[in-house]
Every structure is written in C-alpha cells, then in structure tokens.
C-alpha cells in the first residue's frame, strides 16, 4: 500500500504524510492516556512547500528512501521533518544519554524497566514488530 502510494504521489509526500500521522498520534496518545480532551488541529499555514528534500537517498528494503541506520533517521528524506521527529521522541521517551544506561531512573517518575513495559505493550498491541 505505501509503495503504491509513493508511485502515485512521490516519496516526499508520503514521508510527509507518515510524519504527520505519526507525530500527531504521539500528541493524541498522550492526551488519551491522561484522560484529557484532544487538542484541535491547527489551521494550515499559508505558503509554498519548502522543497527541502535530501537527494541521493535510496530504499534499503524500505518503503521510502532513507539513510543507513535505525529508526531515528527514517524520515530524513525531508530534513526538517526528520529533525522534528528526533527532537520529539527524546523528551517523550528517553534522551540519548539515558538510553545508554540500563538502570536509568527518572525520579520522580518511571525507571527504564517501567518505561519499557509501556513501550513493549504499546508496540505489541499495535502489532508492530519493530
């Protein structure tokens, strides 16, 4: 399905669509788990697309072109989108220096084992092997 869409509209539009759906789901998901009302969608801004697209990337058995590496670079076909994605998951999950520590403990708050219980169950329920 994703590959068919890239053929129809091009890789950049698909990466943008993935980024919007995924990043908004982070906002909605946190609100839902807190029992808070969802935020209304903002109004679209006026202006042209930036046309900032990373050239020379290729598919790596993936649906869209990306650099070699793990999930933090998955949206780097669009540099500003990739940056926004990376900036968002650290504060919501763990910062890079925290990931290096198996006994990371956010006091007050969850420790790493507890954080990974939430992430593991969420991924399992979403049927996401990654």
């Amino acid at each position: 399905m994703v590959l068919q869409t890239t053929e129809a509209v091009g890789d950049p539009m698909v990466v943008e669509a993935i980024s919007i759906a995924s990043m908004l789901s982070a906002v909605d998901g946190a609100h839902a788990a807190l029992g808070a009302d969802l935020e209304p969608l903002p109004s679209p801004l006026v202006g042209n697309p930036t046309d900032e697209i990373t050239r020379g990337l290729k598919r790596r058995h993936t649906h869209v072109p990306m650099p070699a590496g793990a999930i933090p670079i998955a949206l780097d076909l669009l540099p500003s989108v990739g940056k926004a994605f990376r900036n968002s998951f650290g504060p919501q999950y763990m910062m890079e220096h925290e990931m290096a520590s198996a006994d990371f403990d956010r006091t007050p708050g969850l420790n790493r084992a507890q954080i990974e219980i939430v992430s593991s169950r969420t991924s399992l329920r979403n049927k996401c092997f990654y």
Partner: protein
Amino acid sequence: MLRVSALAFGYDLNIAGIGDPSIAIGVPGGNHLLALVDATMAGSPDGITDSQRAIIDELGPESLVDAASVFGNFEMMNRVAEGTGISIPAQAIDRMKDTIDKLGIDSLQKS
C-alpha cells in the same frame, strides 16, 4: 532491552506479562502500566481512570505523566516503523529469539 533493564533493577521479570497482562510481570506497578495501555487503546474511560488511580497510588503522579508520554511516543514510533517499512537487523532478531517465541510475535515480522 526490557530484560536488561529489569535485571539492572533486580526485578524478577516475567516477560510473558507483556503478552498477557493477567500474568504478574514482576516489576513495581508494571501491571497497572499494562492496564493503562490497554484501557487507552480500548478507549475505555473507566479503565483509564482505574489504571491512572492505581499508578498514582503506587508510583506517584509523575509516573502517570511519564507513562502517558511513553505511550504517545510509541504510538508515533510504531507508525513511523510501519509506514517507512524500516526493518530490524537479522542479528537483533536472532538475539531476541527467546523473547519472540515467548510472546508469539514471530508472525509480526512479515506483517
């Protein structure tokens, strides 16, 4: 990673609890965290409220904010992974084989 972090804290983790939240997972507040994820995904206001109360009582209000934040983050990460089709290195899958078998998630690799 969960196994390593549980070991670091000296918890007697039962990884099967990730697949079946009726099983005691062996991490403080862990089953309340599982219940929050399930209730939120089910859109169950009562379930959300019950699990929120349990988390606040056992782990504190900051932990509820953390849990909601991590849940939201993985709603995002899962969609990025599935949408972009990024795969897991074969070596990592080999390393996790025992956990994959215990959770019965082998079929998800192909989905």
